[in-house]
């Protein structure tokens, strides 16, 4: 854990309808860190993650990554930056009718000649890498199945394999377990944790459930109405106070269980 991989400076996003999704957000992630963003639905978590790889255009601010400001880059430079940032999604965002292996291969597109995609040619090396990525997430035997034939947990593993194909420096995970059974949630986050611990992958992940946050996060940022309202280390989040909790989730929020097993009920 040393130099910051990603530094966000004064990032703001106002949508065309006037919604202020992010207001002057600044923070940084160090290499090899597992940073979790928590907050209610609509607090700006998704917008923040999507600004980092420019799926959403930030209104103002800077996103420093590898010496360049992502908020300013365009065209080829933007695409070559994007391919270094893996992303996994709440709804998995697989192409359901395509084969699993095709979905994984699509993670490498940023490195391939675009004209090859028209004729559907994939270099053998890329295909091999895709099998390896599937092995890494433990579903190599499903490679030839259609994506929609897989269970939710398996689909999210395909999503991770696709992100790995990008050989990313950082992985953004937007509520990666919100559409899954709680049991599966642990197994998916275990994969991310393994990547983080064993391969030193930097992970920026938004999460809903406090008990998951307490289990996996190195550091936590709380967002509310697009502003950072909480920042804490692993130790801090284990002992989060009711006041801090309400700061993040609002006055009506109820802590269930509390302590280590604390969850939250949305207000």
């Amino acid at each position, binding site marked *: 854990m040393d130099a910051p991989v990603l530094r966000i400076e004064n990032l703001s996003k106002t949508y065309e309808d006037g919604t202020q999704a992010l207001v002057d957000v600044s923070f940084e992630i160090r290499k090899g860190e597992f940073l979790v963003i928590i907050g209610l639905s609509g607090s700006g978590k998704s917008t923040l993650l999507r600004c980092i790889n420019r*799926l959403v255009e930030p209104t103002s601010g800077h996103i420093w990554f590898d010496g360049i400001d992502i908020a300013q880059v365009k065209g080829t430079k933007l695409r070559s930056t994007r*391919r270094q940032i893996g992303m996994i*999604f709440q709804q998995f*965002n697989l192409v359901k009718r395509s084969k699993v292996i095709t979905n994984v291969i699509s993670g490498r*597109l940023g490195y391939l000649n675009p004209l090859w*995609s028209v004729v559907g040619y994939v270099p053998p090396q890329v295909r091999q890498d895709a099998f390896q990525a599937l092995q890494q997430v433990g579903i190599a035997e499903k490679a030839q199945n259609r994506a929609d034939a897989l269970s939710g947990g398996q689909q999210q593993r395909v999503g991770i394999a696709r992100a790995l194909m990008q050989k990313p420096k950082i992985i953004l995970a937007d509520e990666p377990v919100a559409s899954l059974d709680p049991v599966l949630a642990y197994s998916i986050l275990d994969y991310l944790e393994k990547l983080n611990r064993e391969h030193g992958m930097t992970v920026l992940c938004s999460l809903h459930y406090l008990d998951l946050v307490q289990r996996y996060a190195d550091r936590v940022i709380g967002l509310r109405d697009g502003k950072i309202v909480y920042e804490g280390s692993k130790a801090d989040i284990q002992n989060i106070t009711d006041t801090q909790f309400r700061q993040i989730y609002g006055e009506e929020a109820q802590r269930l269980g509390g302590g280590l097993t604390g969850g939250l009920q949305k207000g």
Partner: protein
Amino acid sequence: MKPPRSLLSLPPILNAFVSLIPGLGQLLRGYITRAILIFSFVASLYGLVLWRLDDAKIAVTVLPPSIDTADLSRPQETTLTYAVVAIIFAVLGHLWGIFDAYVCAGHKPSPPRLGMTFLIIGTLVVGSDITEINIAKAVREIDDIVPRLSQILWPWNPEKILYRDKENFDGVALWETPCQEDGPVEQPEPVEGQPYLEIAPDCGDPSGGRLPNGRRREGTEVTLKGYNYRPNEQAELIINPASIPEFRVVVDGERVRVTPDDNGQFELSFVMPNFTIPSTTVGAVPVRIIVRQQKEIGSPKLVKEFWLSLEAIIETIFLALMATAFGLILAVPMSFVAARNLMATNIITLTIYYLVRLFMNVVRSIEPLIWALIAIVWVGPGPFAGVIALTIHTIAALGKLYSESIESIDDGPIEAIQATGADRLQTIMYAVVPQVVPPFVSFTIYRWDINVRMSTIIGAVGGGGIGAILVQWIRIGDYDSVGIAVWMIAIVVTILDYASARIRERYV
């Protein structure tokens, strides 16, 4: 619903009075939609009635007095009757509008059911007059259609659609007109196994022309003796003067026939009928006189109209197939630039999107029949013109369906593929194309189905395929053949309909 704000609150009686102008009372009380409805209905109904009355008057004044209007298919009294009935309903509707205005001035009016009923009936009455609906005529002249309809519905009578080749068994004698001085006419040599004829006299005159006393000239009576015919099988008399085609001799509406006896012999006398001798003829005209027995040989065959229909329906299927294929090839690229979700990135692409959309809507709103007429001017009548017409319409129709299915795809994969650093082309190939293949397949097959049905019509204006021969047979009144063609169309459309439904089921 609260009563709306009045523009001008007149007392009920006055409000009813101003409604002599239909809808004005309602308008003043703020029931704007109601006012527009009543005004447009009543005004247009009065207008239509005036027009029909005017039509009836013109019909009277422009006809010359010698023509009895009762002889015309549509006497002006009918129009007059319709117009009077329509006026009654228009006035009823108008009066109801006045009453309604009175009610409106007090409280919220009930739905305008009664008034609208009057006005709608009035409109339908005028409509019946304009479209010259005449149910009595349809019932009276039903006999014109019933036999034809039964021919069309069931053309499969064996004696109509089957035939067998015929073999002629001819005995020939030679005769000439007028008689010459150079001795008897040389007769053909009898051939072993073939019949032959003896003729007396071997020359004379045909019937026809006028004698100097004004009476019609009778032809020479000729007696034939036949030998070597097949016993007890009917034979026909046929005459073949040089330079004109052979014809059967008909007397009193009956063909002249004879049946040889058990020995294959007969004797037949007849008066030489009238036939035209070319005016340029010099000397005698030789005439072949034939007594012919016919025998059907071989197995029954389908009539040539059946094979013509079969060829034409195959042409129709391929016409539709080619149009669908060309339409597909051109509609796919077009649909991508006509999909809003792919083109909304900047002002240039958005402009292209609107232009392509406009183009497709304009082209689609013109029926293939019209395109066929245009294509015929371009490449001449025939199936190629049909292909062009259907292709043009197919591009627009498929382009719209395709682009709509592109617009309705799941955005998630697009976002995910973009996030990997893929460019636009890669995103389309990996995230959009896999999602749109099933609807594209489904729409394309459906379109082929539609194109087959449309191409039957396009043939009627010269676009090739089965429509062309169908229209021809309707014109010459050959309803048996029409039936064959109609059956072919029905069978093919049914099969395609079923097949396309099954394929679409599997793909979606």
